[in-house]
């Protein structure tokens, strides 16, 4: 009967179709198409980390024995810390910033591993934690833009099958990493200036990262009137802690484990690490304080840090003494206010250093 490909050429059609789709997908991943279709900015921040590591390693090779390397691991809240300001305050310290938007502990641990494997000797590390990044959703960008196959394979027991699948999808299909937004493309085809605007933004991220060792400090004080914060906080809270049944927060067991792994790895490598929680606008902090999860979540993290003898800096505890509290949105303190909180951070690091 010989019912095979050789006899029936039409049987090749599904295979050709699969191949065609696979190739067509790659077209959407090209720089030429992406400059028309890409609208999200997160990729730029995640993509810069390779260049940042090279920069760090170049510094490492010239590092003097009395110099100290501080690495900041966190979310967009950490981006505003200025390495120049820190160096002014303590000239022994050189800071690199490995933070990224909404980066979860798994991504921060991934960066820690990458830096250590490259041979860098880290003296101080600051690990920022907020409840948002302990949810499954926080891993979206890192799964799409950051992790490599080896890291995923080594940590397969920690990640859920959904996360493993998202990673595979993102690494096989360009459209998963860079969803082509046709409305954006239409706008950019009509108005080429919009492409220039997007490219300018990317080059700015690149330049700022290069000049500021990964940070994007902005010393100008921006301020949004506080009267809009109440409403904005509710909107942000509803989006960040989307209700899942009667619970508005479901902690990812994977992210909790990576948080522990981060602390453990720091301890093993003799890195003086500080767990840090940023200050946010009062209405948002109030919503968190009134929630049914925040206190439990925070207490748990303090306990985990204390268990390993790791100090914790909760900036909310210093809220009454922080003079500059201008926010650009409900959870980002204006860059202009950072010198004051940098002082608090450095004081905490030096106090801990003395007690070692």
């Amino acid at each position, binding site marked *: 009967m010989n*019912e095979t490909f050789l006899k029936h050429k*039409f049987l090749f*059609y599904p*295979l050709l179709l699969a191949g065609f789709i696979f190739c*067509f997908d790659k077209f959407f991943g090209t720089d030429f198409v992406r400059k028309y279709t890409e609208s999200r900015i997160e990729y730029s921040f995640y993509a810069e980390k390779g260049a940042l590591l090279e920069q760090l390693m170049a510094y490492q090779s010239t590092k003097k024995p009395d110099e100290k390397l501080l690495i900041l691991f966190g979310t967009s809240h950490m981006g505003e810390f200025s390495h120049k300001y820190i160096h002014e305050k303590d000239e022994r310290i050189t800071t690199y910033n490995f933070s990224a938007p909404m980066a979860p502990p798994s991504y921060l641990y991934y960066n820690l591993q990458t830096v250590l494997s490259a041979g860098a000797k880290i003296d101080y590390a600051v690990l920022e934690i907020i409840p948002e990044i302990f949810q499954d959703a926080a891993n979206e960008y890192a799964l799409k833009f950051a992790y490599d196959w080896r890291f995923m394979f080594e940590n397969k027991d920690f990640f859920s099958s959904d996360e493993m*699948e998202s990673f595979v999808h993102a690494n096989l299909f360009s459209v998963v990493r860079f969803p082509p937004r046709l409305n954006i493309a239409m706008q950019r085809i009509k108005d080429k200036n919009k492409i220039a605007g997007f490219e300018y933004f990317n080059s700015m991220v690149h330049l700022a990262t290069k000049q500021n060792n990964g940070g994007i400090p902005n010393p100008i004080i921006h301020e949004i009137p506080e009267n809009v914060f109440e409403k904005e906080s509710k909107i942000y809270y509803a989006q960040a802690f989307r209700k899942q*049944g009667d619970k508005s927060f479901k902690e990812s067991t994977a992210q909790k484990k990576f948080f522990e792994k981060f602390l453990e790895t720091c301890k093993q490598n003799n890195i003086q690490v500080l767990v840090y929680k940023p200050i946010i606008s009062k209405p948002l902090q109030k919503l968190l304080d009134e929630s049914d999860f925040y206190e439990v979540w925070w207490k748990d993290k303090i306990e985990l840090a204390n268990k390993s003898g790791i100090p914790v800096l909760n900036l909310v505890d210093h809220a009454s003494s922080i003079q500059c509290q201008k926010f650009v949105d409900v959870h980002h303190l204006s860059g202009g206010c950072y010198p004051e909180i940098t002082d608090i951070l450095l004081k905490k690091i030096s106090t801990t250093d003395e007690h070692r």
Partner: protein
Amino acid sequence: MLFTSLLFAAFFLVVYIIFWSIPNQKGKEFWLLIASIVFYGSWSLGFLVHFLAVVGMNYYFVRLLHKNQSKRLINTAVVINLVNLGLFKYFYFFTDIFASLSGISALTNLRNSTTFKIILPLAISFYTFQMLAYIIDVYRKKVEKEISLLDFTIFILFFPQLIAGPIMRSQDFLPELKNIKAKPEYLSPGLSFIALGILKKVLIADNLALLIDPVWTAPANYDWITILLVAHAFTWQIYCDFSGYTDIARGCAFLLGFRIPENFRSPFLADSARDLWQRWHVTLSTWLRDYIYIPLGGNRQGEFRSYINLILTFTLGGLWHGANFTYILWGFYHGVILALERVFERFNWRITSTSFLWKLVCIFYAYHVFVIGAMMFRSNNMGDYLLIMKKILTVSSGNPISVTDFETILYLCFFSFIIQLAQYFETVPNWILKSKKFLIPLSYIILLLLISLYSKSGKEFVYFQF
């Protein structure tokens, strides 16, 4: 291995390439068996062994029944299959009932025990029904020709339909299995069904689930409008979820040269409850008719008895879905509605207008029969069901769903309605048929783009739990 996962796509590609590279019939059969075993084994090796043992045991009964058409034998076979199903599916349900009646605390705590746990084997409800149908057909002499263990095992394990149907009949499947042919006319429907199924499941059902699941988990927190909205939304979610699965299953089967039966024929455009059940989960409805309703006496023992049979059949159909009173109530409710429709027909109370407006009224009625049932079906327990009914009937207040979510739900429901409307008119326009070579790749590209923009995390198919 979810049908909508990349893993399944890779698996199917390998199966497809090897299947159509094997030149002989026997080799193709063996390959199908291996693929189906791998497919089920990827879920659980332990339960694969259990499954194969059940298939082997049923084949043994089939052989015996071919030799000796004994009532005792068929009863034994049916009872063993039902005990196997009941043990896994209804154990906790019945121990809970027994515990509440007897007050034995050890039984009450059984469900929460950490040392003793019964896990429901994947697809057990579907494969049990398919095997029962076959052995009953052998007993009834509807199937007279003996088949080999290999063919019987493939018939039960055939991976595209294994997990959630359609519940196949041997008469439909075995002739194609015994004469596997590459059919060019199966190519376009195969690819189109796969695309349509992915669209329904990934873009509609999963997105709807994401929006409405929180409401179903804690309905007490929400207002009556939200509850009403999610009842409708669940109706479309389950349609897109289940019919999406069936479309992918049929599409894969078509590409392997098999035509497996249709399970959904635009059910929400039915104009009566009876019509609805001829369009919704068709293979289960016909199974219930042939193997429960008719053996109970059907409509041969008088009008009143036929109503009772109908209610009983559907109540058992409800119980088949799961060990929960909400499913039983759901089945009972549909049985009662169907019986009432028959009473109306018997006394000629049914309006027989052929006007378009009257047709719309009938469609509206049948759709809402389903929606009311869907609320029972989706509620976590009877308490939740009573609560949501109370909320709706008393126009109760609570949290509303956000405006954005509300709008998205409406768009998704409308989109699925358009799909169903398109499927209602079964003939495909000529211009589509003529340009299918161009339209199929185009539809896959559009699908890829839509998934990249709008797909959320993949969810299991709702009917996998049954």
